């Protein structure tokens, strides 16, 4: 069965957890900019955590369903509804055949990830269903959704069917994940980083500036990276490096001295010196940054970055076990 995007919204694309194994051919990781949010939404909808969902940027999506589905979303502060019923972030909700899910413009943050039970059934390209908007493959022909587009959905899982029956009365589940997971957007967040691979290319004064001052998100930001305005970060010399690998979270400094925080659709290699590397768990916060937002950076040791990641994974495992009770 299908769901129809009556209104596709500002930029809405199909994303899963991205593609690995093809970086040596220049193919980006891609996938949901906040993979954790998509995993949580998928679990809530009774899906495998890697199922393809929708990445909704700046809202505006209206999606009409042809059959019964469980939906759940995580992301910025949005007003989301099914028909006239409010659906807060992080709650599994029942959509009946013919009903519409709609999401308005954000109050805080800019992106939301919507999971639909059964997942979105587009062909797997190079190991992923994610839309690669720059090279034009994956998702729906490698482009954002269009108004009136039909999306094919997979079959409801056994878990989703149980939930559909349970939610016939209340329509929306009371239980929810930790607030940080369902609503990661923050005003003036501090992003934690570990030292960049080219730390030596910057003086101590520059590093000090990087952590002492606020930076503003430039309008010229997208799924490839977030451009930042703030103090001009001087490099020790103007020579770019021979290109080497970069990754989501890399903060690179071009000759302009204005840093760029790379996200999932970034190039696989780059030649600008890397001053810092934002830790994986804080990329959920970075994925919500919109033009004009201000951010700060704070350095932590790599061992702490791993500890934070392991804690989140352990908690997600607990959450998954806890959910199992609702699917019985």
């Amino acid at each position: 069965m299908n769901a129809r995007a009556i209104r596709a919204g500002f930029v809405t694309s199909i994303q899963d957890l991205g593609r690995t194994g093809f970086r040596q051919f220049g193919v980006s990781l891609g996938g949901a900019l906040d993979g954790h949010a998509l995993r949580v939404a998928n679990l809530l909808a009774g899906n495998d955590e890697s199922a393809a969902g929708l990445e909704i940027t700046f809202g505006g999506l209206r999606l009409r369903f042809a059959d019964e589905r469980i939906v759940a979303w995580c992301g910025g502060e949005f007003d989301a509804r099914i028909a006239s019923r409010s659906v807060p972030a992080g709650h599994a909700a029942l959509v009946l055949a013919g009903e519409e899910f709609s999401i308005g413009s954000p109050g805080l943050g800019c992106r939301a990830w919507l999971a639909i039970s059964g997942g979105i059934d587009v062909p797997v390209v190079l190991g992923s269903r994610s839309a690669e908007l720059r090279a034009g493959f994956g998702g729906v022909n490698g482009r954002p959704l269009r108004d009136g587009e039909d999306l094919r959905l997979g079959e409801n899982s056994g878990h989703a069917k149980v939930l559909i029956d349970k939610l016939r009365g209340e329509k929306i589940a009371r239980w929810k994940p930790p607030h940080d997971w369902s609503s990661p957007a923050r005003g003036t967040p501090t992003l934690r980083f570990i030292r960049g691979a080219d730390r030596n290319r910057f003086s101590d004064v520059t590093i000090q500036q990087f952590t002492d001052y606020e930076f503003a998100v430039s309008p010229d930001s997208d799924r490839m990276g977030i451009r930042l305005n703030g103090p001009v970060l001087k490099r020790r010399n103007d020579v770019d490096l021979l290109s080497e690998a970069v990754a989501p979270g890399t903060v690179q400094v071009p000759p302009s001295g204005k840093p760029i925080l790379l996200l999932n659709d970034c190039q696989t290699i780059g030649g600008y010196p890397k001053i810092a590397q934002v830790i994986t768990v804080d990329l959920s916060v970075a994925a919500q940054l919109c033009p004009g937002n201000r951010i700060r950076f704070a350095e932590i040791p790599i061992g702490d970055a791993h500890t934070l990641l392991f804690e989140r994974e352990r908690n997600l495992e607990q959450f998954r076990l806890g959910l199992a009770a609702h699917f019985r």
Partner: protein
Amino acid sequence: MEIVPLGDSAVLVRVAENFDDAPEDALHKVLAAKQGLEAARIPGVVEVTPAYTTVALFYDPMGALDAAAGAKNVFGWIEQQILEALSDDRELAANRVARTIVEIPVCYEGEFAPDLEEVAQRAGIHWKEVVDLHCSAEYRVHCIGFTPGFPFLGGLPRKIATSRRDVPRKEIPAGSVGIGGKQTGIYPIKSPGGWNIIGRTPLRLFDSKKNPPALLQAGDRVRFRSITREEFERSTS
């Protein structure tokens, strides 16, 4: 050799100190390191990707946690695994070194080559000599990047090395062959770019429906062959 974290889920292994003086040597070291790291099957490692003088190893920290005995030790453990994997000077498997030469047909004419005349002028030679020189060399693919399937080729004759354009073009057609400084390369998909465009190939450099999706990969040997407009049109129809 230098091993540095590229965040909490990747490591950069810098295997060659110097590129300009010995690009072939750097490429050899990079390919050997990539092979060694792949063969070592380190728990948690997802992929290994080569660049000019470095190899990046991407890993899932969760996959390394058990073996590493604790979160605080994951990087130290990965570093140790890399050192062990690269301890013996591995020789490249014969099949990689002996790979045949990939021939790329290029039409160096008209609108396919908007910057050919300028490259010729800067080199102080006739444009036909630029084409002859470009087709005379054997190139090596040092890495793929910038866009999916874009090969960075070393081995460009010095005479036709031309610095990048001051103002990059907003859109360069797929198949365009360019010169950027001492390198030459091919734009696999329509994209912005600052290289000097001297021709176009009818070959598809990237196809997401194929596996591998890129025509070329690091280590490949490449030659260009000049074709006429008629040949170009025949191969695209």
